[in-house]
């Protein structure tokens, strides 16, 4: 930004709500003198500061890029609506928190894709940052716009806006990408040649080097590279050894309150349980644990560098960490005199051991969250959520005994094969949890039991066994919500539900093809942004956008896709094979569960990659072809 723009920005900051989110300057923020490095990387989080700064992936990559001697990474967040409007009006470009540099001054712009409803923010940020929104409009001097994160596994809806996607774990590929762009620029290569070089890196997808064609009925007819530099299949990147992988030992400590204002230790990546609705469970396979030794070292350094008073352990399924009780004990030991509390999120109900409950309590008693996901055993078998009612009741009883009195239960509505019986089951389960509380003698339980049931709407996701499934229509969902409201009219029970139009849109975008990019563009042009914030979400404008593009949301969300249909994301190899997903889908239809592959490899497809520690458990029937799953 030039001085005039900076002065205008100062004036804006006096007018907007929550100006502190735009000032940067936090403890541990890295600010390298602009001219001291060759490559400037703008790490863009397509949501507001309070959410961005709560995100672990950003902290890892911020630390990683700033660790490079010849590169600097600066953070850029989506401004709130009031700020965005004023910036446009007063002609102030979107800027980085560190140097207040305009977005278009960076050589590389990187977006992290965490959820579909942040996609219009990407367009808004590019536009506010004076970067051409459409990749096709960018010319030699413009930044190269890259993106990664879970939503990059189906990159197609964002292809009009992103020059290159990174698929899979970011740690290794980020180094290669930054170096490749630096070398290309130094050698004075034209933009297209740099992109072609990027396409040669494992795990990198450069959409302009591919072409998609469609059948008359709108389904994908073909998808292939148009350039010899581009591979036909893009394989996800996997960091094999998490203990050796880079992890921040110091992170920026925000001044203002953010969603998760604490240090986070990622203890493990991946999950072996194989819940059939869960996309993360597939994308982050295989399971890799960070060693206890490394975790304790990081915990110590993080505490010293941040001064945080709270730490949380993060992973998809922390209870599966092989020495969780030891880890908690050691952390508590280490933190004894430092007044740091340890909290354990996302615990699964079937492995909450009373012992860890007691230990967490000694440190901090946050609300207990459990996710049975479905109301009946039959439906839990369909989704392969290996949890029984007894597990749940035992877990909450333990928790009530340890002094908890409020429990959150997460459910999903609209799962494949769901009937009214399953919804009633949610009510019955909630009632049993309340009963479990009252079954305890008064002196053994804390006062005032509260059970909160949240029901989200099921969204079929790519790379899950349900990727072919239709989503319930908005009307169906509304009927089910009304029914569920009746079933949950119980003493001590609250019910929260999600808006179904948002879930429908999510279903469209996450399984969308290239043409979905036009809808996103149109929606943004019509004024959509901050879609994840209910006060800004404009379903009507999104529907207008679909209409303007001649596309039908029902085609993407409500249609059951046949196995022989070419899926837009099929060219990406997530390690778990399409065949395995199909077999899992068939088993779901037959109400059959599949074991947790910690107890024996199910042959998901990753076994040939040499990255999965659990393959060594020999398959039960080794005569079977490698791809065939082996079940309990």
């Amino acid at each position, binding site marked *: 930004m030039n001085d005039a723009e900076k002065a205008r920005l100062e004036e804006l*900051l006096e007018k907007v709500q929550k100006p502190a989110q735009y000032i940067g300057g936090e403890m541990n923020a890295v600010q390298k003198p602009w001219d001291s490095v060759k490559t400037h990387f703008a790490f863009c989080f397509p949501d507001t500061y309070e959410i961005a700064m709560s995100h672990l992936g950003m902290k890892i990559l911020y630390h990683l890029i700033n660790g490079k001697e010849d590169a600097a990474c600066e953070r850029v967040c989506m401004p709130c609506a009031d700020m965005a409007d004023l910036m446009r009006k007063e002609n102030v470009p979107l800027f980085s928190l560190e140097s207040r540099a305009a977005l278009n001054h960076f050589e590389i712009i990187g977006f992290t894709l965490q959820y579909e409803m942040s996609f219009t923010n990407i367009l808004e940020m590019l536009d506010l940052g004076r970067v051409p929104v459409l990749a096709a409009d960018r010319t030699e001097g413009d930044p190269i716009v890259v993106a990664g994160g879970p939503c990059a596994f189906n990159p197609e809806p964002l292809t009009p806006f992103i020059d290159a996607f990174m698929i899979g774990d970011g740690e290794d590929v980020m180094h290669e990408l930054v170096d490749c762009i630096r070398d290309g620029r130094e050698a004075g290569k034209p933009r297209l040649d740099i992109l072609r070089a990027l396409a040669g890196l494992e795990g990198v997808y450069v959409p302009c080097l591919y072409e998609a064609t469609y059948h008359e009925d709108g389904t994908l007819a073909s998808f292939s590279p148009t350039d010899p530099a581009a591979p036909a299949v893009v394989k996800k990147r996997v960091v094999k050894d998490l203990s050796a992988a880079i992890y921040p030992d110091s992170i920026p400590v925000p001044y*203002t309150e953010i969603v998760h204002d604490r240090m986070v230790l990622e203890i493990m990546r991946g999950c072996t349980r194989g819940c059939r609705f869960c996309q993360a469970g597939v994308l982050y396979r295989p399971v890799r644990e960070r060693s206890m030794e490394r975790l304790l070292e990081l915990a110590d350094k993080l505490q010293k560098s941040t001064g945080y008073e709270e730490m949380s352990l993060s992973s998809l399924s922390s209870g599966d960490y092989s020495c969780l009780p030891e880890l908690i004990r050691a952390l508590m030991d280490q933190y004894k005199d430092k*007044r740091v509390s340890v909290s354990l999120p996302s615990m699964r109900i079937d492995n909450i051991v009373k012992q860890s409950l007691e230990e967490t309590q000694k440190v901090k008693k946050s609300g207990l969250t459990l996710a049975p996901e479905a109301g009946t055993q039959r439906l839990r078998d369909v989704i392969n959520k290996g949890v029984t009612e007894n597990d749940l009741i035992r877990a909450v009883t333990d928790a009530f005994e340890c002094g908890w009195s409020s429990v959150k239960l997460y459910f999903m509505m609209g799962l494949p094969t769901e009937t009214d019986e399953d919804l009633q089951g949610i009510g019955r389960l909630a009632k049993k949890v309340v009963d479990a509380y009252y079954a305890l003698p008064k002196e053994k339980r804390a006062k005032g039991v509260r059970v909160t049931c949240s029901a989200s709407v099921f969204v079929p996701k790519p790379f899950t066994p349900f990727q072919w499934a239709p989503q319930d229509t908005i009307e169906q969902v509304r009927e089910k919500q009304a029914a569920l409201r009746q079933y949950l009219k119980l003493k001590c029970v609250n019910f929260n539900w999600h808006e179904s139009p948002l879930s429908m849109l999510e279903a469209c975008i996450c399984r969308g093809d290239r043409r979905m990019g036009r809808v996103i563009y149109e929606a943004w042009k019509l004024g959509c942004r901050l879609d994840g914030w209910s006060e800004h979400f404009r379903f009507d404008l999104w529907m207008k956008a679909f209409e303007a593009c001649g596309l039908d949301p029902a085609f993407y969300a409500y249609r059951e896709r046949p196995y022989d249909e070419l899926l837009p994301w099929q060219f990406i190899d997530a390690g778990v094979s399409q065949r395995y997903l199909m077999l899992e889908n068939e088993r779901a239809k037959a109400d059959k569960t599949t074991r947790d592959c910690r107890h024996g490899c199910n042959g998901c497809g990753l076994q040939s990659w040499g990255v999965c520690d659990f393959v060594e458990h020999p398959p039960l029937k080794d005569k079977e072809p490698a791809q065939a799953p082996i079940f309990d």
Partner: protein
Amino acid sequence: MKMIVVFEKSPRLRHIGHLDLMRAMQRAMRRSGLPLRYSQGFNPHILLSFAAPLSVGMPGQREIMEVPIEGTMTEAAFSAMLSPALPPDLPLLSCRAVPDEHPAPMALLAAATYEARFQDVPSGLGDAVERYLNQPEIPALRKTKSGEKPCDLKPMIYGLTLTGDTLRMTLALCEAATCKPDLLLDSLFSFAGTARPRALITRTALWGQEGGCFKPLEAL
């Protein structure tokens, strides 16, 4: 013992509110490894008190806080531990060791100096300041919890001078009487009959009183 610490809240951080600043300081203390003292009770927190909260939007050049510590240590040792733990925009300027019995800075506080730097200085402002101060009484409406109350600002103004584009105001700041710079500026410009121009207001000093004279608060 305790330390009286002088620090700066730099202009970059002016939009940070008092509670956020306090949390930032507490985290800095925790990073420092200093032998801190904690409050009693269910949720113990670091004992730390500021002489006077700073409003959102205002930088402070010489802000003051009191930090009780366990045992004794030299001022040099204290600042060697705290300085690196502070964010670059909250630098430590000086510190002074005092015994526990020493009164809290908050209790000694009498006045503060503020500097308002105007983007455009209205012509004739210098004259207006002079006439403003020459009034026998300076009536104003002070906002309180129970609505607006009339008051006389005159006894609360210890100094008011315009130099170039900067208006320097030394105003009462203590439990008995406080005049916020906003109140003074509103009153001054309504007296002058011109719209109040945009200004960056910085708190530049905090004062206590000794023998009828103002002395820097940290030196008392």
